[in-house]
């Protein structure tokens, strides 16, 4: 393709301009070609399904009477639907408790591992991270067994003291049961992110602080935490999005928890039930978008809030 242009010896000025244009175009095309694979996948598997789901959410399909265009009726219905609202309220409550718990544990572990440099620290790091390497589904199944009244270890441990083990799969305690599973699964992952951020801090800062008379605690709170604030905000956003979209763990534990987890336990599960078991793809899409809206608002509010806070840090 280049042969044509290069073989010619003499060129007029407009010709040269034309050739430059072609070279320019070629560079553009090469650029597009590199972005292309991502672009195709992005359009085909993210944008197109999103648009299709949005389109679906504007319709209503009835068993009798077929499909009709209803504009935002599904959204109006979602925000007055007790199943959706109670699910949304649950994930918000759950976020308010689980995110601080996870972050505090992750931060504490990262700070401890950062200040000790023994072989044990390396081993601990790996062990704390390990739960994240286990697929959520398997983790949930495992915890289902651990919580089990019939053959879980809790029963035996509590039995030693003549007490009855708490039933984390009952409707009273399922909140804490899930809190534990989620913390176990994710705290190690967040710990690694924070730990990596801590590794990036210039050690001379610590030396300077020590010369100024700062203790370990002061170094941690006055230097380390402020310096890894971006990483903290990153994991906060991750966990916020993840928790609002809570699905895997309750969906798996649902089969083991006697009636404590309904099919509308979280908005995601409710959307799944509507779409795949009741064939109501329209309402399922509307719920998904409504949930997306809630996630967006929460994350935006959070970022807005932290942006202000960060100036204080």
């Amino acid at each position, binding site marked *: *393709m280049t042969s044509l242009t290069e073989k010619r010896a003499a060129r007029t000025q407009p010709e040269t301009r034309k050739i430059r244009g072609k070279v320019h175009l*070629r560079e553009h*095309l090469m650029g597009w*070609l590199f972005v*292309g*694979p991502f672009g*195709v*996948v992005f359009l*085909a*598997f993210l944008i197109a399904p999103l648009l299709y789901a949005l389109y679906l959410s504007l319709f209503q399909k*009835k*068993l*009798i*009477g077929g499909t009709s265009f209803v504009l935002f009726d599904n959204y109006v219905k979602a925000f007055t639907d007790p199943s959706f609202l109670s699910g949304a309220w649950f994930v918000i409550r759950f976020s308010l408790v689980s995110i601080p718990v996870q972050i505090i544990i992750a931060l504490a572990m990262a700070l401890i591992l950062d200040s000790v440099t023994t072989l044990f620290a390396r081993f601990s790091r790996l062990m704390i991270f390990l739960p994240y390497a286990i697929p959520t589904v398997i983790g949930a199944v495992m915890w289902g*067994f651990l919580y*089990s*009244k*019939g*053959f879980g270890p809790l029963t035996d441990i509590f039995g030693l003291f003549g007490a009855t083990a708490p039933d984390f799969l009952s*409707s009273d305690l399922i909140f804490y049961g899930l809190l534990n599973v989620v913390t176990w699964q994710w705290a190690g992952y967040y710990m690694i992110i924070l730990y990596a951020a801590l590794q990036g801090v210039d050690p001379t800062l610590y030396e300077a602080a020590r010369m100024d008379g700062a203790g370990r605690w002061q170094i941690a709170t006055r230097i380390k935490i402020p310096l890894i604030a971006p990483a903290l905000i990153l994991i906060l956003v991750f966990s916020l999005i993840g928790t609002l979209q809570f699905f895997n763990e309750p969906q798996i534990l649902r*089969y*083991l*928890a*006697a*009636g*404590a987890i*309904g*099919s*509308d336990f979280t908005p995601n599960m409710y959307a799944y*039930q509507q779409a*795949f*078991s*009741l*064939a109501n*793809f329209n309402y399922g899409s509307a719920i998904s978008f409504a949930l997306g809206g809630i996630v967006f608002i929460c994350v935006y509010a959070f970022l807005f809030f932290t942006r202000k806070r960060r100036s204080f840090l």
Partner: protein
Amino acid sequence: MKRRRILATVAMLVAGSGLVACSSDEGGSDASNCTNTITKKDLPVVTMWGWYPNTQLVVDNFNKQNNEVQVCWTNVGQGGDEYDKFQTAISAGTGAPDVIMVEADRIPTFQIQGALVDIKQYGYDAVKANYSEGAWKDVSVGDAVYGVPVDGGPMGMIYRKDIFDKYKITPPKTWAEYEQAAQKVKDAGGPLFGDFGANVPAVLMALQIQKGATPFSFDPAQPTSIGVKLNDQASKDVLDYWGGLARKGLVGTENQFTPEYISGVINGNYATYISAAWAPGYLTGAGVGKGQDTGKFAVAPLPQWDPANPVQVNWGGSAFSVTKQSKKPELAAKVAYGLYADKESLTDGWTNQVIFPLNLTALKDPAFIDLKVAFFDGQQANKEVYVPAADAYKGVQYAPFGQYYLDAMEKQVSEVIKGSVTGAQAADRLQEDVAKYAKEQGFTVQ
């Protein structure tokens, strides 16, 4: 030239990303997805979804005997899993198999969406006499037939002989006696008497029907109108009865079909298991009746409300239906009629208690009736309990939105188990919920 190359590159990329879609495009109709091996490769192939434990054998038997068509079987999951996939295929308009195993209570759900073929025109008359009228009624909507009956689920009371002997009780004949016996066992420090699980709403529905409830009435001639009566006195009584048993600590509230529940059954944590004729097969498959609890189970007829007028009910039971997406409905119907209808398959089905057959050649077979069931320690369970129960079964009108109804019921039963509502309140809520849904779906609710 340049353009062509770019186009080719782009085309390649699109093709590459499209690969994922291609492989699932064919879904159930892809012959290479068969779980079984098809030996007569030159014959047309009909795809089928099913989850009977002995499907492999049934399909092999059919394929061996048939020189017209071959079956390609896939197990896409049991119960709800399969229905969810079928539902998705219906919505997508592609991906369903030709023949699908469906429980009788789901037939109206799929029928109303136009997903099933009326197979009456494809040889119904030839096999009509092989099944009872009740069996045909469960798979029909009005005059149209939407499935070939395979198995039924006449209900009985499975119980632990060792526990009954230890606490000196005899199988209760009425629900009042059931409660008394439960109380007696509890007072003596014995195990739970049964289980009230939120995840088996179909059982409660059956027990409500036993007391005289008619949850749904539906006239196919007027498909837009449906009767919903979920909070009549009978329905309330049954929910209150079981809620009461749970509150008094007489029965457990464990979800059924879970490892927790099964281990409880193995450990003798439950004196009875109110279940259907297919339960022994299921329990054996899950490891019950082996080892320490070998030969400890027996079965008695389902307790009654009014012993003078006994009512028999059904839990589960399934059929083979032909889907609208099938491009060869006639061949598919032949498969539906022929699968699990040969003597060898049926015999395997009932000797191993995988199914309780509805095919009369099996039902009337003395070997079947007199079978000494190993799980029940040689008790003639069919003769004593299940065959009379099946014979007396009158059939039920199921809802065209069965999935929603059962989900909603599960939710209310959970509330009853939690103790936040009484059974009667739960029935009222259920009525309101389901009637509202029916109206939303365009039905006129009576």
